[in-house]
């Protein structure tokens, strides 16, 4: 059956006839004589017009008609005359530096060190979701020097809304010195023209190895554990994020069949199938949909969770109750064909202290500062060449059971990022997620 929103091509007359069974719908439509009837967003539509374009399979376009970055469709964002990077060698402004970040996503002590070093103050405002951040930035409600924590799935929105200013790499020597080579030239922002990486993580399974008896990593398809979790009913969690959550059954199916999944698919059948499989978890284990696994797993309020790797590390660092060892936490992440992500730093187009903003970015690209931010507070690892899991395990900072929670460069390359979709694609994922969440 076609989804209700597939009716956007119908005329108003047809829709009114079709809705005859719906008294309220009819009365509303009747009252609104002369109104339009569409669920097609403004500015969407139109296809290839030239003869040459018919010779190419068209790729979906993102918000604002911009290209959607993919590993096989790398994008170099243009630097326009009205929005050029700052010139070389400018003096650092006094500040204050205004930063916009997720709550509790940067180490206050490391920020204080920056303040002391640059004799300035850093004012951090927080947002709860990327959508909220972009909506507020786009509305001009907030203006910041530095924006922290957005990801490749937001880059098109940021560019389309003209929210970023290009970076001048002469102020960022630590980028080429310390950061993984792949992320110095990511496909979503070739040449790191507008962004520099902040953290990396993977999607995987977090569990309490003292309460879950199964050897999850040894299972042919570890994701199956969620569909065999009847005995942990009420203690199982799923990430409350439509992309991560729906991508999980997609990975499971792909592992079973041995194919490489497209975790940024816009195929309605695949998305609906993922929703169907997720819905089974409601009856199997009454799955909780949360992002508090960093706390609930250490406390034992959940024992099995679909998790971001950084949450397990943060849990091990800071949320273990008294008398519970961090080694009770385990994490498994797929070596390939799973989800990896990276958050980035960027500088706001209306930055009042752009040189100071560059200094801030370079400061957090420094190995020691990045390490302190990760180990002392954040739990989400920076993609620094000098930070590796073995060294951290040897120093006793990370239990062996969480080795896989630290993403390696080869793992990052073999997995997929969840990226921005076309408007229609986004809607398909939203619809599926809404159906799942309705229970």
């Amino acid at each position, binding site marked *: 059956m076609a989804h209700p929103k597939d009716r956007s091509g119908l005329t108003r007359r047809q829709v009114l006839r079709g809705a005859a069974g719906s008294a309220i719908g009819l009365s509303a439509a009747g009252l609104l004589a002369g109104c339009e009837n569409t669920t097609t967003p403004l*500015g969407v539509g139109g296809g290839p017009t030239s003869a040459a374009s018919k010779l190419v399979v068209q790729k979906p376009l993102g918000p604002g008609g911009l290209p959607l970055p993919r590993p096989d469709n790398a994008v170099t964002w243009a630097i326009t005359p009205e929005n050029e990077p700052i010139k070389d060698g400018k003096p650092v402004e006094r500040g204050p530096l205004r930063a916009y970040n997720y709550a509790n996503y940067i180490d206050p002590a490391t920020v204080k060190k920056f303040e002391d070093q640059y004799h300035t103050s850093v004012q951090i405002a927080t947002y709860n979701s990327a959508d909220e951040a972009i909506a507020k930035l786009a509305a001009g409600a907030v203006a910041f020097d530095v924006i922290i924590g957005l990801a490749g799935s937001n880059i098109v929105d940021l560019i389309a809304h003209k929210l970023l200013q290009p970076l001048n790499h002469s102020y960022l020597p630590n980028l080429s010195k310390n950061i993984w080579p792949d992320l110095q030239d990511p496909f979503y922002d070739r040449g790191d023209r507008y962004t520099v990486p902040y953290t990396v993580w993977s999607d995987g399974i977090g569990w309490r190895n003292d309460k879950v008896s199964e050897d999850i990593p040894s299972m042919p398809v570890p994701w199956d554990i969620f569909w065999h979790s009847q005995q942990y009913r009420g203690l199982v969690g799923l990430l409350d994020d439509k992309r991560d959550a729906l991508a999980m059954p997609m990975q499971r199916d792909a592992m079973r069949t041995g194919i490489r999944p497209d975790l940024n698919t816009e195929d309605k059948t695949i998305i609906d199938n993922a929703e169907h499989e997720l819905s089974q978890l409601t009856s199997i284990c009454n799955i909780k949909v949360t992002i508090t696994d960093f706390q609930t797993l250490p406390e034992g309020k959940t024992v099995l969770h679909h998790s971001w790797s950084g949450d397990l590390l943060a849990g091990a660092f800071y949320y273990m109750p008294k008398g519970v060892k961090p080694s009770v936490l385990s994490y498994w992440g797929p070596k390939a064909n799973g989800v990896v992500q990276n958050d980035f730093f960027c500088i706001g187009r209306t930055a009042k202290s752009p040189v100071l903003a560059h200094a801030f970015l370079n400061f957090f690209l420094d190995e020691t500062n990045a390490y302190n931010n990760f180990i002392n507070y954040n739990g989400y690892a920076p993609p620094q060449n000098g930070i590796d899991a073995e060294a951290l395990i040897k120093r006793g900072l990370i239990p062996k059971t969480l080795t896989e929670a630290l993403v390696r460069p080869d793992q990052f390359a073999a997995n997929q990022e969840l990226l921005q979709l076309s408007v229609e694609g986004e809607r398909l994922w939203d619809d599926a997620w809404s159906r799942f969440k309705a229970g």
Partner: protein
Amino acid sequence: MVEVQGGLGLGSRWTWRALALPGVAWLTVFFLIAFYAVLCVAFGNQDSLSQPVPFWNPLDWNVGYFLSVMHDIFHNGPFLTVFIRTIVFVVIAMALCLVVGYPVAYFAARHAGRWKGLVLVLLIVPFWINYLMRMLAWINLLSPGGWGTRILHGLGIEWIFLHLGLLSNPGGWLDGQQSTVILALVYGYIPFLILPLFAALDRIDQRQIEAARDLGASSFSAFLRVTLPLSVPGILAGVVLVALPMFGDYYTPDLVSASTKTNMIGNQIDEFTRQGSEKVSGAVLTILLSLLLLVLMAYYLRTTRRAGQEAGAEG
């Protein structure tokens, strides 16, 4: 002389009307205009960046998203499931609020005597603590091994819930139980019901009850025929005060359950408006929820006005 009195009366009338101005201005800015904005978003569109584009002119309104949501509801879609679940949760929670709250309000108003002030303070005390804080406290109390869980187990209440199928496993109060969400709603909102009920019961003229007893009514019969009917406006006020926030609640299910089986319409609205590409659908659901509440409110106003008229006629 008459002219002077008339002049004073006119001035006085305008003075009283002027006093209403701040309230009217407040409602206009923060309710009517805000509500009209939501309406314009619900009957608007969104741009290619998935941001809502309100259509301010009603003649331009786009009914596509509204019809889409209505289609979902009338074709047994997920919105219908959530709407029905929300109504069931709220009706049960309201009934429980009444069952628990009425005796408390009755005792405080009619039998607390010199302790009336203390009882009132105790009723108001929960308001001193933020709703969210109170709910977060329950998460610890109801966790496995928590004090609340142990007490419920010790009192045999857990056993009753398990045997009635309202709890799936021992100690699993936070395992995504519908019963826990309903009880949390009752706990969170019951003071809003008790206070207007107390006020209504306290206002009842004792002589009317005494008259009923003098005419041979038993105490129970006097309660049933005099006290209860006279407290109906208080019951209705309490029910409305409780129902309105309950219908829009989304953080209670989030905090004490987080299961998809307990999601209410507020959760859907929150999901749509806070993130994703369906902000217009979120506005449509907000309008539909408002319509539902409007029906409740209209019934309350009609009943209280009729009660007022009857009281006036008797007077």
